[in-house]
């Protein structure tokens, strides 16, 4: 008689659990495919999202799947043997089940790896897909806007950005082609206009030869010889034989060459003076002023080496103290963290709080929007209170000096609602939190699941110093550790429950098999209830006693629960019904 021994149970249990887990994974993957929302994710992410989300959901529900598999296996295994004609209820059930405990432990380790290793990584990938979708859709909208406003180059840049994320999108490809076509038409139109002007030798405003000659004369009488020469040349271009125009051109040129030497000296002196002004501004650390000065000079004297050199130097120094508005225009639609709020400093009784509407993290730097900062002294009087539309984190400093490339009147600086600070520091704040941590500093942040245990642990210290309580993070770490124990303990209870509810031995309950797919839905409530109770215990004891005592208490509780599960398992009847 072929008795069903420990090894037989082990291999069959392994196969059954494997089937259940594979079924669970398949179910959640198919479900993910059904619930995929193109409004939130680009269709190109469908396969990737489906697989990743399916895996995440599977990991979230691994406990229920395991419990279902164990219950079904242990309630049916001996029935099937009976059907085969070899009645084999082992005389010591617990000794057979004991071999399964090893397998259940292995599954618990796999669960730990999946829940704490794979899940946070996969969740961050889902977030990244959402961000990229938002970015791509923003770029496509920008491209359409640029096309409508005739900014074809910028439009093409935006659509190229979109196509880097979603290269096969037909609409984007068509838009790219349209933009290219429009741009080439635009270029052609421009070129033909210039050619026409060059060919005709007249400005597009269209003067007659007589009008041009009259203007040349007027300017000549007003001693503006260069303008006189210009209009006389235009008249000659239209009518090379015009004697009057020829005369004005020759006389103007003569006057200009006579005045040439003096003018050059004056121009050199003027240039030197202007360069010195810019240099002085640079020396006095008035970088913004120096920048605008050298930018103007570079336009005025494009050939001057010194000016070019100082402009470059100024730009370099400018990147350390400010940023350009066009940088913001280009990135403000990118995804980022919102509603950031943190205690920046709490020293000597002074309280400094910073609020940020949106933070965007890029390789070239961290950009911040809608900034508000307040500093209060020991007596809670306002030291300063400022608001700024934009900022950029530069070397742990939040710089709020947003400047226009050409027009200083369009610069955006912090507005002081009350109080003040030294002028040289008025647009910067020293940040005591690094950009990588800032994204979590939101009073309504609920994304702890995305963060791995070591990162949670490290963040707890950051939270404590930035006006947040660390307890939710530490408690989350303990809850996750307890979940691994729960996985194993619930599996043991499932074995007992399955065995307890095994069918009578006369017939196999074939018809009842159709109910198996419904098992996980009902059992999920029990699993959730058990986990919720654990969650309450962990959180309560942690808040009441602190970390170490809570961990001690929870270890004792888990050991008791595991022992109870083993006792229940060992206590199951081996009698046939």
């Amino acid at each position: 008689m072929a008795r069903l021994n420990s090894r037989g149970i082990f291999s069959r249990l392994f196969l059954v659990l494997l089937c259940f887990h594979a079924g669970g994974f398949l179910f959640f993957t198919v479900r993910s495919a059904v619930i995929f929302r193109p409004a939130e994710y680009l269709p190109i992410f469908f396969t990737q999202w489906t697989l990743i989300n399916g895996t995440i959901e599977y990991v979230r529900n691994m406990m229920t799947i395991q419990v279902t598999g164990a219950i079904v296996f242990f309630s049916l295994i001996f029935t099937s043997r009976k059907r085969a004609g070899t009645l084999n209820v082992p005389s010591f059930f617990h000794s057979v089940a004991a071999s399964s405990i090893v397998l259940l432990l292995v599954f618990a380790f796999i669960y730990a790896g999946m829940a704490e290793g794979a899940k946070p990584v996969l969740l961050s990938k889902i977030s990244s897909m959402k961000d990229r979708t938002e970015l791509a859709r923003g770029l496509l909208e920008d491209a359409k806007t640029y096309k409508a406003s005739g900014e074809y180059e910028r439009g093409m840049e935006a659509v190229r950005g979109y196509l880097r994320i979603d290269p096969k999108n037909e609409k984007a490809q068509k838009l790219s082609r349209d933009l290219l076509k429009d741009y080439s038409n635009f270029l052609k139109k421009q070129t033909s206009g210039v050619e026409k002007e060059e060919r005709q030798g007249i400005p597009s405003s269209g003067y007659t030869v007589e009008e041009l000659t009259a203007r040349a004369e007027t300017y000549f009488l007003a001693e503006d010889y260069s303008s006189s020469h210009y209009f006389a040349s235009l008249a000659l271009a239209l009518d090379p034989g015009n004697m009057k125009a020829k005369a004005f051109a020759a006389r103007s040129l003569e006057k200009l060459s006579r005045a040439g030497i003096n003018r050059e000296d004056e121009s050199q002196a003027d240039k030197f003076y202007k360069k010195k002004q810019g240099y002085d501004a640079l020396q006095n650390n008035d970088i913004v002023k120096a920048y605008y000065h050298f930018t103007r000079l570079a336009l005025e004297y494009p050939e001057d080496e010194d000016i070019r050199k100082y402009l470059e130097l100024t730009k370099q120094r400018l990147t350390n103290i400010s940023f350009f508005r066009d940088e913001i225009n280009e990135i403000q639609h990118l995804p980022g963290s919102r509603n950031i709020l943190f205690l920046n400093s709490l020293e000597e009784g002074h309280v400094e709080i910073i609020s940020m509407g949106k933070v965007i993290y890029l390789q070239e730097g961290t950009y911040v929007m809608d900034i508000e900062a307040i500093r209060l002294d020991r007596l809670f009087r306002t030291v300063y209170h400022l608001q700024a539309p934009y900022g950029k984190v530069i070397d742990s400093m939040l710089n709020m000096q947003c400047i226009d490339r050409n027009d200083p009147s369009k610069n955006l600086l912090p507005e002081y609602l009350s109080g003040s600070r030294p002028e040289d520091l008025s647009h910067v704040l020293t940040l005591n939190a690094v950009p990588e941590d800032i994204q979590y500093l939101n009073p309504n942040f609920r994304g702890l699941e995305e963060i791995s245990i070591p990162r949670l642990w490290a963040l707890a210290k950051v939270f404590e110093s930035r006006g947040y309580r660390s307890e939710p993070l530490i408690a989350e770490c303990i809850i996750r550790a307890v979940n691994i124990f729960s996985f194993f303990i619930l599996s043991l209870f499932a074995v007992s429950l399955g065995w307890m509810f095994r069918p009578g031995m006369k017939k196999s309950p074939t018809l009842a098999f159709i109910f198996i797919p419904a098992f996980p839905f009902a059992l999920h409530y029990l699993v959730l209830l058990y986990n919720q109770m654990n969650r309450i215990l962990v959180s309560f004891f942690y808040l009441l006693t602190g970390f170490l005592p809570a961990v001690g208490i929870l270890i004792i509780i888990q050991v008791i629960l595991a022992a109870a599960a083993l006792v229940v398992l060992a206590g199951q009847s081996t009698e046939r019904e």
Partner: protein
Amino acid sequence: MIGFFEMKSAFLLPLKYIFTTAVLTALFTLFSLLSSWGQTFIPGEGLHFEGTIIIITSVISRIFVLSAVLAVFLVFVFSSRKRYFRFPGFLFMLGAVFCMLLFFFPFTAGNGPGSSLESHKTILTPGAFNPVEKGIIYITPSDITGRNSGVILTEGEEITPVSGIQPDYNRIIRFSDGRTVRTEKVNPVFSPLFTAEPFLGDFLDDITAVQKGLNSTLDRSRQEYLLFIFALALFCAACGTLSRISRWPVVNFIISLGIFRLTFLLYRVFSEEVGREMVSILSNRLATENLPYFIFIIAAVLLVIWDILFLKNNWKRN
């Protein structure tokens, strides 16, 4: 002798039921209290155990219906292997559930506002950003400024420094400049730790709907309340059929769990969603308000008929 043991088993059913209900009530009450204490925890002040006796009835009233209904299913499932006379067993269980809801629910119900731990306490965590009803408030740790000061951040408004923070009553805090802020019912910093997952949360909402339904019926009309608890008790007692519906007890267990879940969903759907639709169609208040009870009664009758017609040795012994 067989008849004696079967009668004894049937008689033991209500006793097991009462015991199970008591155990479940105690267990759920304990966890509800732990959750309530945790959710109102203020660092540095420890847990507030005072007033526990007052709130305990409120907590019990919230979970009593859950315990009373769950106990029926558990008793039936775990007694499915016992031999007992079905009909006496059914009647005993019907009586037990009916009496439990008739005598114990009114005892726990009707606790007015103020009996709940979360309802009136002003909860603010010093040294942390506290989400309040319309914004966020930061209170400095008392050792920093030596006085109750902080800042308020209301959406769309500037950050406002405030001082002289005085907890008022009914979750309101008042500042020296006369401004007031209403705090959350629970500590917003710690309450997420105790919040159930949405899947379980929906179920808890359905239980609350049944509890509220019982409460309002009790306040409205004694006869209606009796009809409600009779319908619920009849449905629960009839669910004994489910524990024998197939030869595979696991399936019976799962079906019982599913029906247990559906009981609460059924009530909420018929009392709230379908009920509202019916009011507009039937324009008969009595018919629409009593709809859930009739649904329970009809379902119970169907289960009994199923038992009589299709289950072996019906109404005699298992």
